[in-house]
C-alpha cells in the first residue's frame, strides 16, 4: 500500500511541474521516501495546528526538493492537494523553494544551500532553553555539504550537545562530479555526532534510524539515495535535474509510476 501511495505522490509531483514547465523532480524523488516516513510515522505535528509549540520541527534545508515536501504536506492535510497544480505559477504559494511565510507546515524559507542546518540549530537550542521536549530534524543534500556553514553547524551542534537535533543527509551522490565527500557519516562522527548509514528508500530502515537519538550529542543519518528514484530515465541523469516532462514524455513516466 505504501508503495502505491508513494507512486501516487510521485505522479502528483510530475504533474505539478506541467503548469510552470519546470521543477526539481529528481531531487524530490530522492527524498520522498524519507519525508513520507517522517510525516507519517515520526514527527509529532498537527496539520490543523502547525505552529503549536508542542510540535517537532522539520527543516528542508535543500529547498529545491520542495515538490516532495509539498506533496507530503498536502497528503497529510496541511493544505489542499489542488494547490500542487499551481506549483511555481505567478501567484502560487508553492514556489520552486519553500517559503515559511506562505506555506502551512514549512518551518523555514530555504533555497540557498547551507542555511537550514544552522537555522535548525537555533531552533533546537531555542526549544531546549524553553524546555520544550521536542525534536528538530533537518534534511540537507550531499552537494549542500560542500558549504562551509554545514561544517560550522556540525561543530556547533556537537559542542552544544544538541541531542534534540537530527540531520539527515540525502546522499544521492550529485556532488560526486564536483567534490568527493567520501564517508560523510565518519565526518560527522569526527565532529562529535552520532551517525548511521541507511538505505534512504527503505521505509523500515528510515523509521528505525529516525527513532534513535543519543542523550549527549546530535545524530546524523546518511541516507544513501538515488536521484530520480523510481523513474528509470530520471535516475542519476543530470538532464533531469531541473525540468518538466514534455507532453510526449509524460504518458510513459506516469505509466512507470502507476
Amino acid at each position: 500500500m505504501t508503495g502505491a501511495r508513494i507512486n501516487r505522490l510521485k505522479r502528483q509531483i510530475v504533474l505539478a511541474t506541467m503548469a510552470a514547465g519546470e521543477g526539481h523532480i529528481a531531487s524530490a524523488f530522492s527524498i520522498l521516501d524519507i519525508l513520507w516516513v517522517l510525516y507519517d510515522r515520526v514527527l509529532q505535528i498537527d496539520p490543523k495546528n502547525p505552529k503549536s509549540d508542542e510540535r517537532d520541527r522539520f527543516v528542508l534545508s535543500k529547498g529545491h526538493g520542495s515538490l516532495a515536501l509539498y506533496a507530503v504536506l498536502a497528503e497529510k492535510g496541511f493544505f489542499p492537494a489542488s494547490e500542487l497544480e499551481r506549483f511555481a505559477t505567478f501567484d502560487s504559494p508553492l514556489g520552486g523553494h519553500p517559503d515559511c511565510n506562505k506555506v502551512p507546515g514549512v518551518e523555514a524559507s530555504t533555497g540557498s544551500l547551507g542555511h537550514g542546518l544552522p537555522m535548525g540549530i537555533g531552533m533546537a537550542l531555542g526549544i531546549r532553553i524553553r524546555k520544550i521536549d521536542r525534536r528538530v530534524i533537518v534534511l540537507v543534500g550531499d552537494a549542500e555539504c560542500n558549504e562551509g556553514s554545514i561544517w560550522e553547524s556540525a561543530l556547533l551542534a556537537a559542542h552544544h550537545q544538541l541531542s534534540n537535533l537530527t540531520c539527515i543527509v540525502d546522499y544521492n551522490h550529485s556532488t560526486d562530479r564536483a567534490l568527493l565527500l567520501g564517508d560523510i557519516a565518519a565526518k560527522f562522527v569526527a565532529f562529535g555526532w552520532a551517525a548511521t548509514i541507511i538505505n534512504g528508500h527503505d521505509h523500515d530502515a528510515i523509521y528505525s534510524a529516525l527513532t534513535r537519538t543519543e542523550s549527549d550529542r546530535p545524530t546524523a543519518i546518511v541516507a544513501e539515495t538515488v536521484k530520480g528514484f523510481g523513474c528509470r530515465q530520471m535516475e542519476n541523469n543530470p538532464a533531469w535535474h531541473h525540468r518538466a516532462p514534455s507532453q510526449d514524455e509524460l504518458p510513459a513516466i506516469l505509466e512507470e509510476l502507476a
Partner: protein
Amino acid sequence: MRKQFVKTIEDLMAQDERLVLLLGDIGVFGFRNAFELYPERTYNIGVCEQAMTSMAAGLAKEGFIPALHSIAPFVVERCLEQLKIDLCYQNLPANIVSVGASYDYAALGCTHHCPGDVAVLRALPGMEIVIPGTPAEFDRLFRGAYANSHPTYFRLSERNNQQSYDDVEFGRAAVTRHGSLATVIAVGPTLTWVLEATQELDVTVLYYTTVVPFDGDTLRENCPSHKIVVVEPFYEGTLAHDVMSVMENRTIRLLSIGVPRQFLTNYGHAADHDLECRLTPEEIKARLEQFLHV
C-alpha cells in the same frame, strides 16, 4: 559605545527573557557578567558568522530576540546572504551590533575596515539601520528598537559626538539648527564635525541616527533651499537615493561627503584617515562654502 552596549544588553537581559546574546568570539571578556548570570542565553559562538546568523534566525523562530555581535566586516559582509534570507526575507526580529565602524580599526588594515556596511545592508529590504552618535544615544535607540520584530543593525563606533541628544528616537531625525541656504544632514558620529563646520553658516542641520527607515518628513519639512548636503560616516553617496527619493518632485542639488569609495591602504589611527578622506570640520566647512556659493 562598546561599554554601553554591554551595560544596555545586560540590563535588558535581566528584564526580557527573550533576549539572547550571540558573540562571534568578540567582546567575550566584556560580557563576562552575562555569561555568569544568563548562561542559557549568552553564547560565544566562535568564529562562524554564517552559522551564527542562521542560528539567530532559528532562535527568533522560537520566540527569542537575538543580538549578534562581531566586528563590522564579519557580522555584515561575511554573512550577507544569511542576513538577507534568514533574517530579512523571513522577517525575523534580530539585532546585529557591530564594532569597528568604517576605519575605526585603522591600524588593522583593509580586512578590518568596513565603510561599505550601510551601503550593502541598504540593499536588503526590511533591514533597519541605526547609527548612534554617543553611548547614551545607543542605549536609547537600542531600547526603542530591539524588540520591534524586524531585523535591525546597530553600527557602533569608537568615535563619539561631544554631546548626546536626549530626545533621539528610533526612526526620527532631529533638527539641530535652522538656516536658509542649505540643509546639512549629519549622520551619527559626524554631528560634532558638522556643528563645528556650520557654526558660521546660514544652514539647517538635521541629525539622523536612524537611516532605515529614513525619516523623509523631517527632511521635507526642513528644506528651505534646493541644496542638500549629506555628511555620512561611511561610503559617500550611501544615502543619496534616500534623499533624492524623498524629494522626488523638487529639483535638488546634492553634495555627499563621506568616505571615498576606495581601499584605504594605510594604517595609523582613524584621525590620520580622517585627514586623508577630508573628513574634518575644516575640510567639511570648505566644501560646504564652495557648494553654497555655486
